[in-house]
């Protein structure tokens, strides 16, 4: 298990835990970041900038501090 912020760029992972406050978890849910969903980091912003994430057909940006509150497990590499 590792925090989303530690995930390698381009690596598929599954969300297994959300440790943010209640309101923000609701917002993440509305954006598709839910337990069991698959997520991938598309790119990391320069100078410690935000992450671009892809969940299904939705792309979002999230700061690294918030991404650190999302637990993931790596999904097996696709064949």
């Amino acid at each position: 298990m590792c925090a989303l912020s530690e995930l390698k760029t381009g690596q598929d992972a599954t969300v297994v835990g959300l440790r943010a406050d209640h309101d923000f978890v609701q917002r993440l849910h509305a954006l598709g970041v839910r337990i069991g969903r698959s997520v991938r980091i598309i790119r990391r912003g320069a100078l410690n900038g935000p992450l671009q994430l892809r969940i299904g057909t939705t792309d979002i940006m999230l700061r690294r501090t918030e991404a650190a509150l999302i637990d993931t497990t790596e999904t097996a590499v696709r064949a």
Partner: protein
Amino acid sequence: MKRIALLGMPNCGKSSLFNRVTGASARIGNWPGITVDLMRARILLGAHMVEVVDLPGIYDLNGYTEDEQVVRDFLGSQPVDLLVMVINAAQAERQLRLFLQARTLGVPMVVLFNMADEARRLGISIDRDAFTEHTGITAHSISAKFGDGVPQALAQIGHLLSDTAPSTPSFDALAAADLEHALDQLAHQSIDTPVTLSARHTDRIDRAALHPLLGPALFIAAMALVFNAVFLLGAPLQEGIGGLFDWLRSAALVPLLAPLPAWASGFLIEGIYNGVSTVATFVPLIVLFFFLMALVEDSGYLSRAAFLMDAFMSRIGLDGRSFVMLVMGFGCNVPALMGTRIMRARPLRLLSMLIIPLSLCSARLQVFLFIGAAIFPAKWAPWALLSLYLFSIAAAVLTAWLFRKKFASREPFALELPPYRLPTLRHVLLRGWHEVRHFVNRASRFIIAGVALVWLLTHLPVGVDAASTASWAGQIGSWLQPLLSPIGIDAQLTLALLFGFVAKEVMIGAMAVIFGQETGALGDTLAQHMNIAQAYSFMLFTLLYTPCLSTLATLQSESRDWRFTTLAVAWPLALAWGVAWLAYTGLSALAH
């Protein structure tokens, strides 16, 4: 009368649908949170007169931001006959969550799966029969942007309205709603998504637009291009129209008004006509500018700007969204101020609202184009303009940095990066048309009254030479001289600045009246009146000094805090004076 409300997540196309159905011109943009207030319009649908309400987009009915509050207040207080739930079909697997919440409100509902065109391209299909079977709610597939499926959906809505009664939603069942499990189930039953999505052109564009070095370079290049285009295309256009107005004046207006007493024809021609027509010569330019703005706002680039700038903005106490509002402020500060409603933390919102009035809006652009073209050599003028934009951003950054401790906040946020989209020609034209109407509106409210007042102040008491030191305008000017002469602004221009407080466009009209000139000759008069140091100082002062009346009213209504509003007026004024003084002394020293 029946009432229907468009409910849906941000950026799913509610306002596009609203415009298409009602013919209204609500603002549309590829940015989540363009609509932050209610908009209503009436249409005849079948046998019913129907009021259609366009709501701000919301992520959650339990939402906590100001724009989500607008929706809750509306739903809690005004009965609706039918909720029209708009869902981005390409993102239905997550957007259906809001549908599951809305279903608990106990109001009749119809679901429109919008952006059918994009979903089709991604290979996503929605089984509407299965959806209706499991939820008992009729669904349609539409494309609000291109119009497919909209007539059928409307016919169905008209049909449904025949046996509905208005009801006020009840929020009692909302908290207990099972969302997560029900969502998985519903998505499984009704949405078919391909296992791997085809590569999108958005990804290819992002590789350049979000590149750590190329991205910012592209941003600055695009900005320079836009302002050069406005200058190169706009300046001759403005001059041509000025010539037309002058011709109209000497060919028709002067002979027509000849029988009137001198003071009356003076008031009508040199006051009202010169003032208003000088401002009006800028309309085509503003339309052109808003064509370009529409292109930027509808492309989806704003979210990318937020991504690029977030790291920097976080160091001055803001985030990427604040930067986007600054860019939006280039059009007009008022909607940009209202756009901060998507922020939850109040200090963050206030700090953003403090810097937005420093953003060089299209009204100030007119003043600068005018003075720039009159005083600077043609080669320099576009760069002088670009430098003012950079000053505008620098002033915003400095302000945020200075006040970051006073308005400290830490708001977690997640922002959608929607796919790039091309606006339709219809949309761009509509936006231009909207700006013309906006201008006529302002002209009838502020500009006529403003230039009339300027004329009176420059011609009273009876018998004085126009705009001389003996006139009331002259007296006001000399009274303020101790304050303004150190920055190179003389008594005559003072009055223009005073009226710029009402609306910046009025400044140009006021100058036309003060110098008693028709449009064509005003530039030359101005050039004799000011040197480059004075002109640049005047422009910097105008850029920063106080927000216009509408902006001020919005600052107060959005913050509901007089102390904040006072700060938002006093600080820019002090900053403006300081910057103008530096520029004036510096440039004057250089010239010697």
